[in-house]
């Protein structure tokens, strides 16, 4: 068995299964993750095969889920907890920020907190309020946390393996609208380092940097631009903390232009940090200011308007045109 095509959700399921098989200390916790297999079926079948002691349906209390996961980690377990939807993480935000992120440092490194927090995030599925948000910058801003997001099934499998093996807490953002997208998973491959960006399409005129659900949009935009004779490079950042600035810099030094794309609001977002740092690193290489495409500084809109809010192919290409016009 080498490469196998599967959906992103299935790849995470397989990765969790591998982890449960190989390490008795790995636990799955969350609301409805057991019998139901999670509302997106990401944990489907795991409780049946590993039992209620390892795949744990929890009370409906997010702070309790993360707080008890911290206690389990202190006891030597490696909990992988699920927050059902992006907008529901905030009751746990206190535990994540004040406890989980800082405890290793507070103990001067003498204890470790290997907790993975899985959060399905982003829009595009026509959901009700609080089910479509992209709060990754709120976590990337906090020292002590690592924040990642896969864009395809292969990365989803391997990045989950790496997140579980990490001795630091990892916030694992899953692009929910890509859950059903299939791609190759090679379980015998040597995976890229967890926090390393990857060039998914080479180009010479401009770099598009994205992660999670927006990688596919950027790839489509690059294909469309190709037809207009523009060669766009697409970078899948994969990690929002740390951000692989070296790879972005290397790309921008070649293309001299950068557009960052994410679903999250542009204001004080991941793109803002990238723009600032790349401006510092590549000031004499840049032919245009770094541009950002993302959500607006308004509450996530009702589903009938989300296509207007979310960056799509045309909004990405509009930013590309503006950059190239400098």
């Amino acid at each position, binding site marked *: 068995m080498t490469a196998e095509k599967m959906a992103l959700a299935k790849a995470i399921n397989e990765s969790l299964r591998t982890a449960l098989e190989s390490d008795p200390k790995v636990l799955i916790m969350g609301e409805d993750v057991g019998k139901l297999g999670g509302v997106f079926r990401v944990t489907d079948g795991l409780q049946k095969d590993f039992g209620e002691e390892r795949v744990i349906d929890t009370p409906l209390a997010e702070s309790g889920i993360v*707080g008890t996961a911290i206690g389990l980690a202190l006891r030597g377990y490696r909990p992988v907890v699920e927050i059902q939807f992006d907008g529901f993480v905030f009751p746990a935000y206190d535990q994540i920020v004040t406890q989980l992120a800082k405890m290793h440092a507070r103990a*001067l490194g003498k204890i470790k907190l290997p907790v993975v927090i899985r959060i399905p995030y982003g829009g595009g599925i026509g959901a009700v309020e609080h089910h479509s948000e992209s709060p990754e910058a709120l976590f990337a801003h906090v*020292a002590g946390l690592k924040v990642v997001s896969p864009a395809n099934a292969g990365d989803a499998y391997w990045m989950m393996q790496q997140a579980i093996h990490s001795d630091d807490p990892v916030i694992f953002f899953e692009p929910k609208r890509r859950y059903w997208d299939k791609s190759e998973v090679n379980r015998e491959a040597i995976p890229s380092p967890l926090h390393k960006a990857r060039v998914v399409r080479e180009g010479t005129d401009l770099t598009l940097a994205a992660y999670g659900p927006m990688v596919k949009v950027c790839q489509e935009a690059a294909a469309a631009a190709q037809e207009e004779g523009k060669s766009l490079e697409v970078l899948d950042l994969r990690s929002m903390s740390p951000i692989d600035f070296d790879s972005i810099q290397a790309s921008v030094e070649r293309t001299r232009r950068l557009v960052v794309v994410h679903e999250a609001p542009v204001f004080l977002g991941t793109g803002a940090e990238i723009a600032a740092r790349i401006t510092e690193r590549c000031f004499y290489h840049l032919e245009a200011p770094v541009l950002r495409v993302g959500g607006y500084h308004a509450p996530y809109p009702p589903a009938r308007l989300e296509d207007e809010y979310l960056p799509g192919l045309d909004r990405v290409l509009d930013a590309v045109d503006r950059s190239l016009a400098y």
Partner: protein
Amino acid sequence: MTVESTAARKPRRSAGTKRTAAKKPPGAQPDLVQLLTPEGKRVKNGEYDAYVADITPEELRGLYRDMVLTRRFDAEATSLQRQGELGLWASLLGQEAAQIGSGRATREDDYVFPTYREHGVAWCRGVDPANLLGMFRGVNNGGWDPNTNNFHLYTIVIGSQTLHATGYAMGVAKDGADSAVIAYFGDGASSQGDVAESFTFSAVYNAPVVFFCQNNQWAISEPTERQTRVPLYQRAQGYGFPGVRVDGNDVLACLAVTKWALERARRGEGPTLVEAFTYRMGAHTTSDDPTKYRADEEREAWEAKDPILRLRTYLEASNHADEGFFAELEAESEALGKRVREVVRAMPDPDRFAIFENAYADGHALVDEERAQFAAYQASFADEGEGKQR
């Protein structure tokens, strides 16, 4: 029906004494478990006497010594704050019995999750007092290895640690160990959502954890009435586990009740809430001024119930301790104060690069980059002399 109307109806109900009497089974617990009265008299208790039945005079003297030394340490820390050696201190004055009684009930393999005021429990667990002072001096944010004494770091965010204790206890149960976990918190924390969630989680998973609430009557300036309409120990009932109120200034009762609760946990009978009814005789912290919100008479009334005094009376009356013991303890106490003073004054500031240490276990590219920038910035002052650099 409003809450007020329920409250108003209460006296009418209790007036029907028959109903109240019928609800209370014979030999039911009194509201407050007490084995040693404020006057130092030993009183019988059918339920909890068994847990201190075999206590020896030597062990009683040990409890007394623990309380005296803890109070001395605490007083020294308060002085050190006044002298500018500590940034802040949270005194446990008045809560010695609650902390020593419960702390001495724990077994070596049990695990303790404290707030930031559990200096007496830390003492019982063998934590070096210097560790506690480092945090309040500002040389670190905790600093000790929790696994050395099974004593977790002090937690400053109110109530957070009750969930950590619950999770840890869930892990103990998974491991099939017969250890127990004890989570400390206060009357103020009882209002926190995390405490409520820890009650829920521990109950549904039957986790071996004891919730030890020191109700010291004051959450900074807010009295317990601002936190609850029912006695705190009664909250447990709604979660499906027992709750007990113990005289928090009675070290014997605290020892007995905590032992009982820990043994329940070990036997797989799940969580217990112990409310130790006590009093914060000092300020909330050295930054607080209790004269703004409470009367001196209240403190004086509680001083009459002093935890150390009543055990001394009992020890003397029952000839368990002689003058030599008290004199020796006095000398030991002063030696401890001196040692604490010296340790704190000699405590060096951390290396400035400690800012970046242990932010992550597996490293982080941005931390590396910023550390290098910080180092370069610091190095730019090198010509001002090595003395400035650490």
